[in-house]
């Protein structure tokens, strides 16, 4: 995989920022800016027009959801500019803020996910390419909400797993890899799910994620 991304990193924890810089550089990406607060992120994103911004939610000066607000700001200035938001905790409502513009190119992950280096690197490329990727924990929060609901119960265990992975933003190929089944088997599950939930199948990855999320949310 020889994709080289131009990346902006925003995290006030120097330790982690350096770790990310090193990891990305070792894997052939180029860091165009590494900053430590929200306003600097917006500036860097506007001037550098990176392929991807990696943003920590909690940054100075407010130490609350500064990074998230900066990410939303970046996307309002440069529509669709890919943003991967990392956080120590994931919350559904934060994900909502990011997904609100329905443009794709959004990732929202627990910081812990950086340890699975290969998956993490894949995610970077996917988000930069316009995919929507949500942390399994966010999806789990949604699933808990809706587990008791009728249509979801009509899904088999396997189909529920596939649905969760779809919500996280996995392609059929990566679902197949994770569940150790053939891609055609996954396709069959997916079409079953769409039928049972009366969802309209989308070609585009991020539209598919949004549709699944919308359903899980009961919209």
């Amino acid at each position, binding site marked *: 995989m020889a994709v080289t991304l131009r990346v902006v990193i925003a995290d006030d924890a120097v*330790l982690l920022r350096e*770790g990310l810089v090193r990891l990305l550089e070792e894997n052939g990406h180029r860091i165009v800016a590494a900053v430590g607060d929200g306003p600097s992120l917006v500036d860097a994103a506007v001037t550098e027009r990176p392929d991807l911004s990696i943003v920590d939610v909690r940054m100075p000066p407010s130490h609350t959801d500064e990074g998230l607000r900066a990410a939303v700001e970046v996307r309002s200035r440069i529509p669709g500019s890919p943003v991967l938001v990392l956080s120590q905790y994931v919350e559904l409502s934060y994900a909502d803020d990011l997904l609100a513009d329905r443009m794709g190119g959004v990732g929202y992950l627990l910081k812990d996910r950086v*340890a699975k280096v290969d998956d993490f690197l894949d995610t970077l490329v996917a988000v930069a390419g316009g995919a929507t990727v949500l942390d399994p924990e966010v999806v789990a929060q949604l699933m808990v909400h809706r587990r008791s609901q009728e249509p979801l119960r009509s899904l088999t265990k396997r189909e529920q797993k596939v649905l969760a992975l779809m919500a996280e933003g996995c392609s059929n190929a990566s679902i197949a890899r994770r569940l150790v089944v053939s891609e055609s088997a996954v396709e069959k599950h997916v079409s079953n799910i769409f039928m049972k939930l009366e969802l309209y199948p989308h070609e585009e990855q991020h539209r598919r994620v949004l549709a699944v999320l919308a359903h899980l949310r009961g919209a």
Partner: protein
Amino acid sequence: MDGGWIRRLMADTRYVVTGWPLALVSFTVAFFGLLFGIGAVVVVGIPIFISSLYALRSFAERERRRIEAVLGVRIPRPVYKEPPPDAGALRRLLNPMTDPMSWIDLLHGSVMVWPASLTFLVVGLWWLNAIFGSLYWAYGWLGPTSMNQTLLNVGLGLLCLLTLPLVARGCAQSQARLSRLILSGVAELQERIFGLEAERTTLVAQRDSAVSAEAVALRRLERDIHDGPQQRLVRLALDLGRAEKLFEADPQAARRAVAEALTQTEETLGELRALSRGIAPPILTDRGLVAAVGAIAGRCTVPVALDATDLSGRPEPTTEQAAYFVVTEALANVAKHSRATGCSVTLRRSGESLLATVTDDGVGGAHLAKGHGLAGLSDRARAAGGTLTVHSPPGGPTTITAELPWQ
């Protein structure tokens, strides 16, 4: 006998003797006030009635002072109702009528005249008898008299003279007690309730302080965990992930990543240790306040002189904790803001209190205003049932004293 009984007797007599005309005037005012209030035309009657209420209020006030003098106790002053701030003229005029205290004054004015007359009569007769009886021999011969008559009169007179202090005391006391019951029974009850309420307010304030101190401490703990160990563990995971990926392609780089991960682990452990020390320092629970404060004093960047020679035994754990945190925070402030070259910490027991004092020779100007670290300290002290005082004129020196309940 030091003549105190004479003073006593005169005071009792004065109370009873002046009490009667006062009661008579009060009664007259009450009677006519009520008469006009009920009977006469509203336009004239009500204002007259209300002025009589005001007059009775001043009589009652005077009576309370008199009771205090004769009974030697403090009588609580009742709280007369103020008209509401937005009240109109009529409402203001009628205000006394809405106050139960006014009606109690009226009651007092109307009834006290009867017992006051009785005591006046008794005390008056006793005095007259005592004087004129015991002096009968001096003037009795002026008229036709017999020896027997003289003896009888003088005997009665002496008896009255001897019992006079007792009788005066008894009359004054019963009259004053009755008067007190009417005038301040309600007020005394009121005062007790206010006392309870004040106590409750203090408790509520104490609880609020505890809650806010705890909330602040928790928020800070969360921040400390987030900024410290959590970040380090993420970095650790990242380094290990990198190492795993690098092992085959670049073993040298992988080794470096593992070495970095090891450093991260050590530093995480160090940070966790510091954090747990901040939550509940083991040395405080194990060895007590003096040892724990000694330990932080040793770590402080400004030289600290610790004096705890007067401290024997250990106070309540909550007090120890509060004192520890006050001293810790105060020392942190000294190191950060004061530009002091030296500071002293004193721990001592004063009666039922633990006094923890931190003094530095820095620039001063510290205060308890919200948003400063010291406000948190004050909350902390209050939560433990104590108080925090800060004396810090510009130019220094700064003295912070926490007074905490020992038990």
